[in-house]
């Protein structure tokens, strides 16, 4: 029987006001243990002010084969970007 601790994905907020960012993974027996391990493994150089731990198998990831239908349709929607709209310079800063 395998006693291997499950894999956890670690997200760290580097500075106040920033989003949490994925920094890596580690093994731990449960969430509390993962939190401590994350502190010890991933903040040794003063890298964080907040930690999220998520069990890897709880993450639902998009499938690479669905890349086309997932992401390509948004490419055509140039009107979502500010540069699409031509406003005369006379109007001033907008």
């Amino acid at each position, binding site marked *: 029987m395998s006693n*291997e601790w499950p894999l956890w994905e670690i997200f760290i907020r580097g500075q106040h006001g920033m989003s949490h960012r994925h920094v890596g993974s580690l093994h731990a027996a449960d969430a509390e243990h993962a939190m401590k391990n994350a502190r010890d493994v991933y903040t*040794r150089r003063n890298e964080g002010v907040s930690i999220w731990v998520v069990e890897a198998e709880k993450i639902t990831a998009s499938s*690479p084969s669905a890349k086309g239908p997932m992401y390509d349709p948004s490419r055509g929607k140039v009107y979502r970007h500010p540069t699409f709209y031509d406003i005369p310079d006379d109007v001033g800063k907008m």
Partner: protein
Amino acid sequence: MYAQMVKSEATKDDPEQLAAFQARVDADEKIEPKDWMPEGYRKTLIRQIGQHAHSEIVGQLPEGNWITRAPTLERKANLLAKVQDEAGHGLYLYCAAETLGVSRDELTEMLLNGQMKYSSIFNYPTLTWADMGAVGWLVDGAAIMNQVPLQRTSYGPYARAMVRVCKEESFHQRQGFHVMMAMANGTADQKRMAQDALNRFWFPALMMFGPSDKDSVHSSQSMAWKIKMNTNDELRQKFVDETVPQAEYLGLTIPDEKLTWNEDTKEYDFTEPNWDEFFDVISGNGPCNVDRINMRQKAWDDGAWVREAMIEHAEKKAARKLAAE
């Protein structure tokens, strides 16, 4: 290097898929865990990343050998932080390998039963405190040369692990050189220790880059896949060219009578390491192979009850929480 002599696996995949895959690699797209990849690519990567990870944790042992004997509180903290980083690097790399469908426990078993290798350099003993200088300066120096280009490797998780490793590793070589400087500027005994350490580690460090390109049959596929970025000889030459002036600065002599500056090539000519010795070490006959694996095996066995108990407790705790709800 930390992953020496990694044999590329032949691959028997659909030619069209292979071509599309190669096109992605050629376009410097990163390959991610769920993407389609040739079976040979996956297997070669598991072997390479696994070997790299094993090198980090076996590499803890020769330096760990001196933590309890470090001569000052400052040196003890520096060395401990460095060897701790190696555990961290092993951890990042095992996690990268795990994205390819192999568990850390499986990789560990393969290290312990000899199916997987680790870098030849860690089968040499660390005999004096000067070896902490030589290992940091030469071994980490050689490792960095290999690891910096690997930050651009085609496999995303491996590349990201290497970015983290390189960022942390930048103090390791300097730490080693700093130890070496103190010794080279020290008493007659210390100078003698420093020279002795260089004498013992010079050729083993050159061996870290693997056999000469002309004898290295596994490179071309790995280079096409961008999981190997430079040839062995390129990196070895670069290492020699960078290290010789550093040795001169220390006032130490590189133990190679044929070492000379070549005005035409603008690089140093140097003696190749003894490749028979290299193959002996790789095949298990280095000075420390048996001791290193025995020590890893003992740590693994001694820790089994802890790993088991932690998971048992987590399960009990979860069950109690459920029952209370």
